[in-house]
Structures are given as structure tokens and as C-alpha cells.
């Protein structure tokens, strides 16, 4: 997919509304113009930086971090990317996870009374950003992000794992076609 303006974001935002009252999933990605992914088939992880996620339950939580990494590796293996342990890979990967509160106005901002007991409410969202860096030029060649509401997905380990699986799959679906 060719971009019309060099250096501008080609943001494909898919708004998928989930169940009624739930927040949508926000997806987007960026491809650096002219990137030849055919030549960038090996990767390894950048040293894991410890940035706070904004939620103490996830900070330095190996159950969370390892699931993200394993899922990314699985998706990449299925697409023919090779993780290499020694030597310099073509790509270096890292990801950022953060949790924040968002406000949903619940319909109270509508000009007419759409519902009698509309109420605003707060909910937690998780954002996952995945970066591919070209090790030769040390520049970002691809980035994908997803933000979705969390519900109880941190307290419940199985729910968290399932949500990570789905989110990582959605992230990597945004790789340019043919990969």
C-alpha cells in the first residue's frame, strides 16, 4: 500500500463497537514510506525497558510481559519472520503498554434526552504499542497500536491472557499485505 504523502501517518482507524455500553477498540498503524519488508525478515527484542504502565498490577509483571512477547513471536513466526539470538537482526522490536482511565459520557452529551437514566462513567483502557526498528538505520519502520477497554481483564489472569492474544493478533494484522 503506497502512501500519498511521504512522512505522514497513514492512520487506519477501525472503530469496532463491542457490546452495548462498552468502549470501542481503537487500532492504528504507521509504515515508514519506502520500507522494503522483504529485506527485513529477522528480528530480536530490544532490551526490555522498564517503564511504568500506570497500573501497579502490571508493572514488572512477567505473566503479562511474557504473554505479550510470546504472542508477538508466534504471530511473526506464522508470517515467516525469524527470531535470531546471535548476531545483528534486521529488526529490533519493542512494545509499550499503558493503562489509563477514560470517561464515557454515556449519552449525557446528546442534545435531546435519548435515555432517561443516562449516566457518565469512568472505565479503564489498556494501550499496547508495538515498534519495529531497522537496525541498520536505527529508525522506526513500522508501528501499530491498539487501545481497548479492560473491564476486569487485569484481575482475571485468563481473561488478561485472552485479551492479550486477541490484541496482538489485531496489531499484527496491520502489517502491510503479503507479510
Amino acid at each position: 500500500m503506497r502512501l500519498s504523502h511521504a512522512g505522514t501517518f497513514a492512520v487506519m482507524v477501525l472503530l469496532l463497537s463491542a457490546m452495548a455500553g462498552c468502549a470501542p477498540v481503537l487500532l492504528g498503524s504507521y509504515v515508514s514510506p519506502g520500507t522494503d519488508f522483504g529485506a527485513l525478515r529477522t528480528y530480536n527484542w530490544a532490551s526490555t525497558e522498564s517503564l511504568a504502565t500506570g497500573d501497579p498490577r502490571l508493572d514488572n509483571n512477567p505473566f503479562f510481559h511474557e504473554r505479550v512477547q510470546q504472542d508477538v513471536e508466534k504471530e511473526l513466526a506464522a508470517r515467516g519472520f525469524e527470531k535470531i539470538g546471535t548476531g545483528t537482526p534486521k529488526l529490533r522490536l519493542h512494545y509499550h503498554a499503558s493503562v489509563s482511565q477514560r470517561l464515557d459520557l454515556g449519552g449525557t452529551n446528546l442534545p435531546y434526552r435519548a435515555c432517561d437514566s443516562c449516566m457518565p462513567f469512568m472505565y479503564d483502557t489498556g494501550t499496547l504499542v508495538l515498534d519495529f526498528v531497522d537496525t541498520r538505520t536505527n529508525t522506526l519502520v513500522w508501528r501499530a497500536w491498539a487501545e481497548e477497554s479492560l473491564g476486569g481483564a487485569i484481575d482475571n489472569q485468563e481473561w488478561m491472557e485472552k485479551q492479550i492474544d486477541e490484541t496482538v493478533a489485531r496489531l499484527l494484522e496491520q502489517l502491510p499485505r503479503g507479510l
Partner: protein
Amino acid sequence: MRLLRQFALVALSALTLSGCATLNVSSHVQRGLDFTQYRTFDWGPADALPAGDPRLDKNPGFLDHLEGAVEKELAVKGFERSGTQESADLLIHYHANISRRIDVNQLDRDYGYCYDETCGALVFEYEAGTLVLDIVDAKTNRLIWRGWAQHGVRDVVDNERRMADTINKAVKRMLARFPNGL
């Protein structure tokens, strides 16, 4: 009468919402691990994240109660405190984090204290305390279990008795989720 009812509701909200009075507890665990191999524990060094809060980390009353409660509960579960870090099977550390959060009357609605137009969108900020308990396999240096307990801090941090109570409940409920291999 309506005014009195409204006042009562507001007063009740203030009470309920004064610091989010529910205790939320959960945990993550390493799957497929044989927990029967662990017999002894000791307190170990904490990593940098999650970040703690000096109101708790530097509060000797808090630390005393917490360490006492954890040691007591582990003893009940059949673990022994080893003499040194080197000889322990498990190393334990904790993080006491405080984060600011916003609520929009949700608790009142959840508890049925208000349900129609009398329930205005009362926006307020509160401080949520999260106590994280990390249990590490001393040989592999891997985290094998993490438990946490969340509670509003406002009424708890300044009141020693209530703080001790909350810590005891939190530690008990957290460690109930630790796989008792014995």
C-alpha cells in the same frame, strides 16, 4: 421531604465514597509449577516497579503490620521463615502504591444509593492504594506469584487501627490465593 431525601443521599454518598471502601483482591500465578517444592521463605530485595508511596513505604506502623501479617499468614499455610536469604526457597517483597483515580458516582449507583435524576454526576478524585505482594523462586529468581489488594487510602492511612484491620484482611485474602503446596 424531597429535599431531605436528597440531603440524605448526598450524605450517604459522601460516606460510601470516602475513599472507596471495598477491598479488591486478586493474583497471577505461574502455571504448571510444582508448588510443593517450597518450604521456607524470607524477605528479599524489591525491584523498582511498581513505584511505592512514601506515605506507606516510610510509615513504620504500616510496614510492621504488613510484615507481621504476611509472616503470620505464611506460617498458618505451613511455610517456615528461614534464617537467611541464601537458604530460603522463596523470597518475598512488596510494593505499596498509591494512584489518583476519578469516580463519577459509580459506587453509589452500584450500591443502589441513587438511581434517577437525584443521582447527579458527582465527579470526584480519590486515592486508591494497591498493595502488591511478590513471591520469587530464590533459585531461579523468577516471580512465581503476584498478589494484590486495592482499597481507598483516605480513611485508612491516618487511622492505625483501621489500617491494621485492612492490612490483615488484605493479606489474608491475598495469600488464600497462593497455591498451598503443603
